[in-house]
């Protein structure tokens, strides 16, 4: 694959020399290869830094949270930025994913005799348990997304917001009160679910992040994604052109819930304790803030703002008293001066950047190149 890329580049060169304005392009496989290499390099370097001690335990913990909130923000972005709805109950799906994954892993590891130490050492059984648990958490959340989405998506705008908020609060109260169901210990009630094995690490959290981003990205580039974007831009027009709006709205909502559940599953392992109070209304708002601040409909925006907004409060611990006020002021000012979010709808594509560089189209030379292209045409 790597060879193909180099031949492609090399093959483009003489052509470029003879026919002056033939645009050099990167083939899709080459783009995948470049991105895969970079992601793997990132994971390996990060993992080495964690195991080598260059990243402290605390920093590693914060980084895992960054990964979790990236998935949360990007998954909410499906429903907000791409579908154009405003659900305010994303934390509810997170808690369902977290509880179901944590309970699943606790029960199964008890049954087959796997200890927390095994999870730290990372035996193959634990790896399998992690994958199954995270997918199980996601599926549980997706199922609840389906149950909630069908009635909720009949409503529009603010009513949809408030009904999803209602569902999330109901989920929270239910989690609070089903600590024992017919003698079977379930969520631990208000004191929380404890004894969750530490099944997350830098490596597996960010591997899940990469897979989630890839899946969401490819989904949005497919015909399903285009249908979802069409609904956002104009629901009536989309319906008139043959998009099954009910189906695609529910579909986007369920996918959004699935990834929130995946993030919740990671969250449970990262924090080690699940308590319903952590998944209140304010958590949903926190995630919505990440999406809107980054720019609705921009995956890069969600990733950047989730990263910044997770690290910022930690970095400002020294100013503990003022940090939340500063956070609020930043939020208000950003909205006043940049209402479309930091990135707007801009999305980053490494492949496109490389293509521009290959063609000598530097950002500052763009205008000149455009003029030449116009003149040639």
């Amino acid at each position, binding site marked *: 694959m790597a060879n193909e890329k180099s031949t492609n580049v090399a093959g483009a060169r003489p052509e470029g020399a003879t026919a002056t304005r033939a645009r050099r392009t990167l083939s899709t496989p080459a783009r995948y290869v470049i991105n895969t290499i970079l992601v793997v390099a990132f994971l390996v370097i990060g993992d080495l830094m964690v195991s080598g001690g260059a990243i402290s335990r605390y920093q590693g913990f914060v980084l895992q949270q960054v990964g979790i909130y990236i998935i949360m923000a990007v998954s909410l972005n499906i429903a*907000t930025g791409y579908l154009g709805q*405003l659900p305010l109950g994303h934390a509810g799906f997170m808690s369902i994913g977290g509880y179901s994954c944590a309970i699943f892993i606790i029960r199964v590891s008890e049954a087959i005799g796997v200890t927390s130490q095994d999870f730290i050492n990372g035996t193959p059984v634990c790896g399998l348990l992690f994958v199954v648990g995270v997918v199980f958490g996601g599926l549980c959340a997706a199922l609840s997304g389906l149950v909630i989405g069908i*009635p909720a998506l*009949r*409503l529009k705008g*603010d*009513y949809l*917001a*408030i*009904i999803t*908020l*209602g*569902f999330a*609060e*109901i989920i*929270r*109260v*239910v989690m*609070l*009160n089903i600590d024992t169901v017919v003698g079977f210990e379930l969520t631990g009630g208000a004191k929380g679910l404890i004894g969750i094995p530490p099944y997350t690490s830098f490596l597996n959290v960010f591997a899940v992040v990469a897979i989630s981003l890839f899946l969401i990205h490819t989904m949005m580039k497919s015909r399903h994604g285009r249908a979802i974007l069409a609904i956002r831009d104009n629901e*009536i027009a989309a319906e008139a052109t043959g998009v099954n709006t009910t189906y695609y709205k529910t579909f986007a909502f369920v996918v959004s819930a699935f990834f929130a559940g995946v993030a919740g599953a990671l969250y449970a392992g990262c924090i080690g304790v699940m308590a319903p109070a952590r998944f209140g*209304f*304010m958590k949903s*708002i926190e995630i*919505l*803030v990440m999406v*809107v*601040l980054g720019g*609705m409909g921009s995956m890069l925006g969600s990733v950047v703002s989730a990263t910044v907004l997770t690290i910022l409060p930690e970095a400002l611990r020294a100013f503990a*008293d*003022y940090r*939340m*006020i500063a*956070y*609020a*002021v930043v*939020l*208000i000012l950003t*909205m*006043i001066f940049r*209402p*479309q979010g930091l990135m707007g709808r801009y999305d980053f594509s490494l492949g496109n950047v490389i293509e521009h560089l290959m063609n000598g189209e530097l950002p500052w030379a763009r205008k000149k190149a455009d003029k030449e292209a116009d003149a040639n045409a």
Partner: protein
Amino acid sequence: MTFLTQVLNGLQLGSIYALVALGYTMVYGIILLLNFAHGDIIMVGAYISWVAMASLGLHPAIAVVLSIGGCALLGVLIDKVAYAPLRNAPRLSILITAIGVSYFLENGAQLVFGADAKVVPAFVDAPNIVVGDAHVSVIAVITIVVTAVSTAVLTFLVQRTKLGRAMRAVSEDMGAARLMGINVNTTISFTFAVGSALAGIGAILYSMAYAQATPTMGIMLGTKAFVAAVLGGIGSIPGAVIGGLLVGFAEVLVSAIGLSVWKDAVVFALLIIVLIVRPTGILGRTMNEKV
């Protein structure tokens, strides 16, 4: 006996929700904004009362005036600083700004007053009235009467005065109202002042009933009142009152049959059922979307 007490409790709680819901409804009716900061304005009102009475030792009547005035002023200030620059921005941006304002007020209060609860002194010193063998709380009666009077005054204001007509015109069509010579910004500020003054009254009634102020007290109160406003049909004054009373009664009823841990869930379940059956709330108007 218990039945009468429960009915009174329901009416009292429902009245507080109704007052707060009225504030939500007015602001939503005019600029289509879910004012997340509304619950926090109540919190500020309760703190003003506490400062006036416990720290400065002022007479409760002065504390009441200060709280209501302070809340009204705060409402106008929030509108001018945070919402007015965003009149033409996407609605979600204003919503996020409202959330920012809410964070700001909560954390500001925590910074100034500390995270622990402050005990608000009693406004009135009144024993319970004994009717037959039932004890009727005077505070409950005051709450119900004040709410009824406030609602009546508000209805008069909106339906019969010139400013009220301007408010209804702006809420119908902002552009057309401007062309008719209505000063839109003044009207919106006035709406915020009235809505926030109602929040101030709500704050006093709430402090009378529960006698404490905490930085986060506005969140749940605000959320429930908001649910009440949506339940009744957001934008409608009688709707807000009906919604408030419904939420109050539902909570009291659920607590009375010994399921108080589920009361929040019941309130939200009620909301969901109503919205599924009547998507714009009990008294809400349906708006047809034009293509």
